[in-house]
């Protein structure tokens, strides 16, 4: 790959990072906190491309035919075109039910339980609900109407789960937190659609077949499709 092509790849790579960082695209792949670093890296790559073109142009003007003693970069550099195409053309979606069912639930005992508003329907983060249901015996949840949001996953036997993927750094370390659905489950469920489920706490539990982790349930009374959240991953564990 010669200098001009390298400059082009650097420029495209930098602008792809800038594009992902300036839109919400990057949230499909990495945690929100990485945004400043993404933008900075994008700027540096674009600057490196500009510098390459500038110094190449200057060297050529001073010394025509100077390219002859330049070391070409190895062929492996061409592979950098792949993430570029994947990010610009395909922009794969955030991890969904396929990964969720292949990975064990990452639910862990919460450090503590924040006080909940005293009345009205409770709108809870799915991870928060699962933690309270599995480790606090649903103490703060009994007798309340609860709303949780997540995407649908159906296991091999067609049993439905509501899932949020929790993420610490990037999608490679994303792990699901699963809540089983029971009660008045909607008759038609499509995997990966986002639902806001209204229901009540139930003491029913299951063991995740993948890692034996706890899967609490929710007694569904209603469900409505909702748009996917801006950040598809749950990042509460990052703080």
């Amino acid at each position, binding site marked *: *790959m*010669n200098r*001009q*092509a390298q400059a*082009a*790849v*650097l420029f495209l*790579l930098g602008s792809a*990072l800038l594009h992902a960082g300036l839109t919400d695209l990057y949230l*499909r*792949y*990495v945690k929100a906190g*990485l945004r400043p*670093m*993404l933008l900075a*890296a994008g700027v*540096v*790559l674009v600057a*490196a491309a500009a*510098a*390459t073109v500038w*110094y190449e142009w200057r060297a050529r003007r001073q010394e025509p035919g100077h*390219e*002859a*003693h*330049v*070391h*070409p*970069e*190895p*062929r*492996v*550099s*061409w*592979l*950098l075109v792949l*993430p570029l*195409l*994947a*990010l610009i*053309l*395909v922009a*794969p*979606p*955030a*991890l969904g039910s*396929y*990964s969720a069912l292949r990975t*064990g639930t990452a639910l*862990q005992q919460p*450090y503590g339980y924040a006080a909940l508003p005293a009345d009205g329907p409770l709108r809870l983060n799915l991870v928060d609900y699962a933690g309270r249901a599995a480790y606090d015996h649903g103490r703060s949840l009994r007798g309340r109407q609860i709303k949780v949001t997540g995407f649908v996953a159906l296991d091999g036997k067609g049993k439905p789960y509501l899932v949020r993927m929790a993420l*610490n*750094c*990037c999608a*490679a*370390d994303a792990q699901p937190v699963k809540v089983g659905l029971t009660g008045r489950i909607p008759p038609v469920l499509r995997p990966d659609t986002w639902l806001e489920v209204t229901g009540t706490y139930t003491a029913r539990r299951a063991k995740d*077949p993948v890692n*034996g*982790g706890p899967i609490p349930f929710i007694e569904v009374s209603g469900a409505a499709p909702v748009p996917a959240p801006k950040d598809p991953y749950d990042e509460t*564990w990052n703080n």
Partner: protein
Amino acid sequence: MAITKAAPPESGAETNAAKTTPPEHGSGRRLNSQLVLTLVLVLMVLGQGPIRGALAAPVMQSWMTVFVAVMVQALPFLVLGVLLSAAIAVFVPASFFARALPRKPALAVPVAGVAGVVLPGCECASVPVAGALVRRGVTPAAALAFLLSAPAINPIVLTATAVAFPGDPEMVLARLVASLLVACAMGWLWLRLGRAEWLRPPAREAYDGQGRGAAFWGSVRHDVMHAGGFLVVGAMAAATLKAVVPEEWLRLAADHPVVSVLALAVLAVLLSICSEADAFVAASLTQFSLTARLTFLVVGPMIDLKLFAMQAGTFGRGFALRFAPVTFVLAIAVSVLTGAVLL
């Protein structure tokens, strides 16, 4: 690289990549790399529909997502490491390291290992920096100790470990101690057994005689293109394993104490998770013993698929093939010992 025959116009990107030396620059029939790049991009844009269709299967989507995620997450750290490496190469005189590090290589190793504390970030940043240190005349043993320790013992990673293991604060200490021990042991081992000819960094032009700006940006460009290419190889391998290998296999391993340590060590290599996040993954592997999870945390930042690819690119394949297995075995041994004492 010594292909001199003109390429037929229809030959693919692979063969043309090598033909960048331009003695036959003027010959109109030859494809140069800009043209290949443009052709590839245009073809991909035209073929968007079919390509998307082929990638619609869940396993392919999941593969692509993990692949893109590893790249997007690693690139900023790679850029940070590349900038530092360029700064070392251009702005820090070689005499600085001669003064900063003890004269005796055996003493320089632990000093460099502890110096890993100052590089905030994950393992992608440490490879180009260690490469720059070697080129700047730092004894390779010390640079290698730095390479191994920096991703594991910097404050960000240790804090993340503390957050991920709220019930077991001794995990942080165990990780620090075990990682430092392995880093120093590898440095000393290199002093005794290492041979200079194993380290064969790929040819790069000398920056002397250029302006500082040209040298700095030349180094940035070279390192991004080079280490970046190898990073892609590692990201593809990690995505393949994440998307294809079922996690149920782990359950079978968890019950046996020896197998569980080996299983998590292998998992750390295969998953290639950023060292800032691996503690959270380790924390969720609740069916495994603390010692097995410590092994996961010590092995991961030192050797994984992504790192192996990048080390091979920076220091040469002969080096990586010898260095990686020894690091792997030593990291497991030290983790088990540390686990027995501290956990």
